[in-house]
C-alpha cells in the first residue's frame, strides 16, 4: 500500500495501474464503499455484494489501460462496469467471474472481520431510496449513486433533462424528510 497515490486523481491511477500496482490499490480504496453500497442496495446479501464488487474491480483492472479520460468522472466508467456486471450476473443467475479468472485471482473468501465491516456500511439511506416511487428512485439512483449526468439519464429514461432534474429534486426532498422522521 502506498499513501503517495491516495491524493492522485482517478484518471492517473487508472493510467498507471499496470505500471504501479499500488495505484490500483488506491483506486480500490477510494471507491470501495460506494461500489459495495451500490451492490448491497441491489442484492441485499453482503457476500454476493462483495463478490460482485471483486469482479467489478477485476474487470476495471483488466481494462484500465483502455480507459480514456472523458467529460464524465472515472467513477462513472467504474459504475458502468458495475452495472454491466450486475446485469450480466442476473441474466446468468450467478455472479460473473471471468475477469478474475483471466487475472488468475482466487475466489474471494471473506473473513469474519470483513463481514462485520461490510455490515457496518450503513444501508439506511440506500434502503430509503428503495421506498421512493419508481420514477424518482430510478432518477436518484442514476444521478446521486451512479453519478451519471442528466443528459445520459434522460436518454435512458426516455424523457427530457428537465423531467429528470425534477424527479431527482423531489426524490431527494422525500429522502431528506424521511431521514428527519427517523
Amino acid at each position, binding site marked *: *500500500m502506498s499513501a503517495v497515490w491516495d491524493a492522485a486523481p482517478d484518471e492517473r491511477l487508472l493510467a498507471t*495501474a*499496470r*505500471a504501479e*500496482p*499500488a495505484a*490500483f*490499490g488506491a483506486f*480500490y*480504496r477510494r471507491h*470501495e*464503499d460506494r461500489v*459495495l453500497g451500490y451492490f448491497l442496495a441491489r442484492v441485499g446479501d453482503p457476500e454476493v455484494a*462483495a463478490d460482485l*464488487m*471483486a469482479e467489478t*474491480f*477485476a474487470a476495471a*483492472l483488466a481494462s484500465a489501460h483502455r480507459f480514456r479520460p472523458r467529460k464524465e468522472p472515472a467513477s462513472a466508467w467504474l459504475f458502468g462496469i458495475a452495472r454491466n456486471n450486475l446485469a450480466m450476473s*442476473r*441474466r*446468468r*443467475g*450467478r455472479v*460473473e467471474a*471471468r475477469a478474475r479468472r483471466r*487475472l*488468475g*485471482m*482466487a475466489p*474471494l*473468501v*471473506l*473473513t469474519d472481520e*470483513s463481514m462485520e*465491516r*461490510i455490515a*457496518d*456500511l450503513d444501508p439506511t439511506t440506500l434502503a430509503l431510496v428503495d421506498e421512493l416511487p419508481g420514477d424518482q428512485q430510478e432518477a436518484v439512483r442514476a444521478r446521486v449513486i451512479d453519478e451519471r449526468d442528466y443528459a445520459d439519464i434522460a436518454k435512458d429514461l426516455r424523457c427530457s433533462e428537465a423531467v429528470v432534474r425534477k424527479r431527482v429534486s423531489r426524490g431527494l426532498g422525500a429522502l431528506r424528510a424521511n431521514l428527519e422522521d427517523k
Partner: protein
Amino acid sequence: MTRIPELEQQLVAAAERLRSPRRFARPVLRAALAVGVGAVVLGLAVVVAGPDDGARREQPAGASPVPPTADREGAPEPFIPERQRIARTANRWARNFIYADPEDCTYMTQPACERLSCVRVGARPVPNCTPPSPAYRLSFARERVRDVEIRGNRAAARFSNGEVVELERVSGDELDGVWWITKWDRNAGRGFFE
C-alpha cells in the same frame, strides 16, 4: 483500512502479475505462433490443393464426408466453403461443450444456451429443463464432424459418435455466413440425414 483488505491485496497482486515481463512476452509469442501455424497451414493447403483446387473447393450437395478442419485462431482466414465453416463451428462448439461451463455461450444462439444452463434471461428457470449429463458432454470428446447437410439457412452436422447438432445461419450468405448452434440435444437435426 478497507472493508475487504483481502480483496485489495488480491487486486494489487493481480496488477503485479500484469506488470511482469512474462506478460509482455506472451503476445509476442502468441503472434509468432500464429504466424508459424498460418505458414504451415498455407503450405499444406498448397500441397493438398494442387493444380485442380477450383474443382475440389466446393463439395457436392447432400450429406458428404467433411474433412476435419484445423483451428487456426489468429491466422488470416482465406475463403472457406460453407460446409467447412459449419463443420468448424460445430467442432469448436463440441470442444467447449465437454468442459461443462454453463456460462460459455460461444457458437450458440440464446435459446440453445438457455437450454444448456436451464436459466433464462432474468435468472428465471427454464421449465422442464434438465442440463446435459456429464456422460453426454463427454461423449463429444475427441469427436469431429463427419457429415454436414444444409437446407437454406438451417444446417445439421453429424459427429463421428453419431450425435447431431443443428445450426442456423445468423448472418451473411453462402460466401461468408456465420453459423451458430440452435439445437444440440437428441431432437437436433431431425429429418436432415434421413
